[in-house]
């Protein structure tokens, strides 16, 4: 698994990926995994044939399909190379009594 700041990429079997649709690109044509609303900084994935997907039943659950190799970038964190495979994207959360909320950097 690979971690960039508040986002973790966990390898999964292809069979574990549910029915998904592509996540729309942002206005700069990037595939954005997570974004800080205040800073505008974003965790972005890319690579040949790489796809960022969202669970059709739960658009907040995202997956990355990497046919060859990929790369994760962010304004404040070092880039990470992703080997071929399927990954589940997990956004870091923080505990609040009775509930929790997402962390964002």
């Amino acid at each position, binding site marked *: *698994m*690979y*971690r*960039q*700041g508040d986002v*973790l990429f*966990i390898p999964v079997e292809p069979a574990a990926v549910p029915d998904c*649709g592509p*996540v*729309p*690109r*942002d*206005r*700069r*044509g990037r595939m954005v995994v997570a974004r*800080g*609303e*205040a*800073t505008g900084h974003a965790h972005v994935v890319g690579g040949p044939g790489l796809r960022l997907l969202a669970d059709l039943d739960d*658009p907040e659950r995202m997956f990355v399909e990497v046919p060859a190799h990929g790369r994760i970038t*962010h304004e*404040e*964190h*070092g*880039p*990470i190379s992703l080997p071929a495979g399927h990954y589940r994207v*997990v956004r*870091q*959360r*923080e*505990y*609040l*009594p009775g509930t929790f*909320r*997402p*962390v*964002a*950097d």
Partner: protein
Amino acid sequence: MKLTHADEAMAAAVEERWLAAAAQTGPAQRAAAEAGVREAYRLAGAPEPGRIYWFGSPRAGAAAVALLSGAPAPGPAWFAAVHAGLLDQGWTPGETAGASLRRRVRTEPWAAARKAAVEALGADGWAQLGAAAGRRSWGLMMDLVAGRLRLRLGEDLAADFPGDTGRPVRTPVLDAIYGQHDGAWLSTFEAADRLCPDAGLMTGLTGLAQVARHCGWWWANERAAVLTERPETLARDNVGRLHRGEGAAMEFPDGYGLWAWRGMPIPADLAAELPTLDVDRIRREENAEIRRVMLEHFGYERYLRESGARRSGSDETGTLWHLDLPGDEPLVMVEVVNSTPEPDGTSRVYWLRVPPRTRSAREGVAWTFGLTAEEYHPLIQT
């Protein structure tokens, strides 16, 4: 129709501009907004409003509509100020605004445009477009800002005008047109219009869109429209929730405001106390929700240090801290050192609150990603 990546990027750019309009602060562009109102009436097939009144906040706007609907004048000082504001703007008591045109001006054009857009783009294309230019702004503006404002406005009016006699002052809230916040859905239609320029998808919405670019909430009635200013202050946290510790997170030029801490509305007297908190005061607070707000504002790490928290272990992921809170579950936090050094070479330390039963820093960090301590093994982290 299937959207290309370029289509989605275009849609996202349209949404970005509408999000900026929805979060815009500062004085309304009155002439442009009024022209938009007239156009919206024209498009709805209604005669232009004889009068357009301006007020400083949605609270004042709702009150003005109530007065223009024949509501009785007595009320708190701010309500009397609205009454005076109407007189200043040439209102003769007894003169009414007539029936609401909200349905004709907003709901019906929206429904017609939606139908046309689904026909032009197909159900799949429309859904794809909604994801590219709508879902994010809806969550950010309608759920986190406009919805909170509407809820708080309803509560504030209910407090000032309780019971059956207060009903005429409270009902205009249901009739508000959201002005700048309508950008949250207008973005989807503008993007659709760019994709299918011949389908006329924005034709019925141009008046509404012009008002949305230039002012805050407004009311459309047969003989008069009531328009309001945008907020002077709109403070949000990194995930877009209303958030400010030293004043109202959303404040309008007539002084009406909404205090909130990380999206949770807070009473103004608590807000006034936040800058001068100390460990003792926080410990004495009996309401757990309020104490949580106090703790967050004060800073968990400072509170842990100043109140004698116990260091309960550390490993390669960080340090675990534990503090008992009387009458509440313990405060347990992981102190983590950021993996990527700052430009000056130092490493930023940050704190994450984790469930009270957490036994190690590793278990705590793993929990923040929904994993067990055994499952959490990042190969690379930056």
